[in-house]
C-alpha cells in the first residue's frame, strides 16, 4: 500500500464495515437461536386454539398469535386473541 492509499484507507468507505457485519450478525444469530429454541408443538397449538375459539366466536386464522420467549430460568408462552368488534 502506498502512503496515499494508507491515509485514504484510514478514512475510506471500508472503515467500519466490520462493525456493520457484527451488528448484522448479532441480529441474525439472535433470530436463528430464538427460532430453534421454540418448542416444536407451537404451530399445532396455535391451530387448535383457533379451532376452539371458533366454536364460540367467528375469528380469522390470524386472530390468534402465539409467542414463545425464554428468559434465564423461565419460559413464557404468550397467547393473544383478537376478538372481532362486537356489533353496536
Amino acid at each position, binding site marked *: *500500500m502506498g502512503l496515499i492509499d494508507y491515509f485514504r484507507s484510514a478514512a475510506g468507505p471500508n472503515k467500519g464495515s*466490520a462493525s456493520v457485519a457484527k451488528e448484522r450478525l448479532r441480529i*441474525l444469530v439472535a433470530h436463528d437461536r430464538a427460532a430453534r429454541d421454540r418448542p416444536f408443538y407451537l404451530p399445532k397449538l396455535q391451530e387448535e386454539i383457533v379451532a376452539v375459539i371458533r366454536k364460540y366466536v367467528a375469528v380469522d386464522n390470524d386472530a390468534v398469535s402465539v409467542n414463545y420467549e425464554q428468559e434465564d430460568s423461565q419460559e413464557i408462552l404468550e397467547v393473544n386473541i383478537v376478538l372481532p368488534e362486537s356489533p353496536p
Partner: protein
Amino acid sequence: MARTIVITSGKGGVGKTTTAAAMAMGLAQRGHRTAVIDFDVGLRNLDLVMGCERRVVYDFANVINGEANLNQALIRDKRCENLFILPASQTRDKEALTLEGVGQVLEELGKTYEYIVCDSPAGIEHGALMAMYYADDALLVTNPEVSSVRDSDRMLGILSSKSRRALQGEEPIREFLLLTRYSPERVARGEMLGLEDVQEILALYMLGVIPESKSVLNASNAGNPVILDQESDAGIAYSDMVARYLGEERPMRFLDPERKGLFSRLFRG
C-alpha cells in the same frame, strides 16, 4: 476409549480439511495413536492434503459394506507412525455412509486408537450429520465473515439437537471455536471481524486463531499437513491449537498486524 473429534463448520471452504490434517498430525506427533477419517463422500480431499492419495486402495464405504476390513483400508502415515488415514469413498451415492455403519467403524477404531478425527463435508445434510453424530468434541472452523459465523452457529444448534449425545441425553459435546484465515491487518483496518467480535457472538471457547497464510497452499501443494512447517505462522498456530486442546496454556499469537517500516509502507507494503 477413544475420543471422537469432529471438524465441522456448515459453510464450505473455510479450512476444515486443512484443520483435520493438522489436528490429526499434531496429536499423533505428541505420541497419541490417531486416526483421521474423510467423511466427504464423492469429494475425497483429505488424502491429497495428507499426501497419501497414491496409496488409497480401499475406502470408508468399502469397510462399511464389508468389501474390505478396516486394517486394509487404513493408510499408515509415512512421517508419523501413530497416524492413520481412512479415505472417503469416491462414489456418487451420497448415502454410502449409514449411522449404523459409521458407528461400527468408530467402535472398532475406538479399541486401539486414542483420538479419531472426523473431517466433515460442508453443509448440514447427510454427510455432515454422519460426521458429527458420534462426536465427543467438535471444532467449529470459522472464518471472520458473516456467513461463516452464522453457519457455525447453526451447526451449534444441530450439535445440540441431532447428535448422539444430545439424543441420548448424555453430557453434551464439548464445542470449540477455531478462527481461521484471520488477517490482523484487515481487522486493524476495521474491514474484518476481530477475534473478540466472533467470540462474543458465538460464545465458545477459542481454541486457536490461524492466520491467513501462504504456507497453507504451499503445504497442500506438497501434500504435507501445514503443522509440519514450523517455520510458518499457520503451522505454529496449529501446534498451539493442539497443545490447548490437550490442556496446555498457550497465549494466542499472530493477532497483531505485522509492523511495517516506512519504506515498505511507501512502496507496496
